[in-house]
């Protein structure tokens, strides 16, 4: 996926609710329009990250599989 992230969050090895908690915390410090890349291998995060985006209004640009984990790209809402 050809998306340039402004910040990368390493959530590999983290379990619920930490990937989401760190996402919320990281997003707080970002500007609208900026993109956060979350790297996570928790299976629960696969459902949680889209759900979190839907509830908070931030946009899930896409996800892609990497070596043993997923990369999620989320754009902060304006």
């Amino acid at each position: 996926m050809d998306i340039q992230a402004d910040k990368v969050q390493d959530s590999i090895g983290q379990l619920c609710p930490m990937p989401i908690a760190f996402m919320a915390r990281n997003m707080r410090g970002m500007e609208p329009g900026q993109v956060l890349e979350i790297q996570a291998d928790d299976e629960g995060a696969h459902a949680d990250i889209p759900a979190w985006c839907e509830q908070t209004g931030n946009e899930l640009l896409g996800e892609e599989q990497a070596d043993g984990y997923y990369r999620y790209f989320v754009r902060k809402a304006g």
Partner: protein
Amino acid sequence: MADNKATIVVFSGEMDKIFAAYTIATGAAAAGMDTTMFFTFWGIKSIQKGNRTGKGLMGKMLGLINRGGIERQGPSKFNFGGLGRWMFKKMMADKGVAKLTELREMCVDLGVHLLACKMSMDVMEIDRTDLIDEVEDVVGVAKMIKEASESQIQFFI
């Protein structure tokens, strides 16, 4: 943001149940909800510093049997006099689950309000000074009901 609130009443003091309570609070706060946790009865144990408490004989006995502290509480099943607590902690740590103290810190960092029930504190002879500094206020049932009535989701754990 009165239109986006969550309220969690934490009645239980066992490790597994407070784990659920703090996890839900983290999730709600992370989703941008104005989240409040009310600690009552055994729930108070998870916001105590862990020092000895009590004034009278029975209060002191209670403080001696369970002096509180989030890391000291055993699971609701299979505690086996503390062995179960050790086992669950080890299993959780091995799998990379956050510790209860980290979870509570995260809650505070995400703006979760921690409120303690005054009546439970009176009964169990627990002072404000026995509670962790992150506790915002000591309140009664009316405050909880007001928050809950404004919340879209409520939990009793």
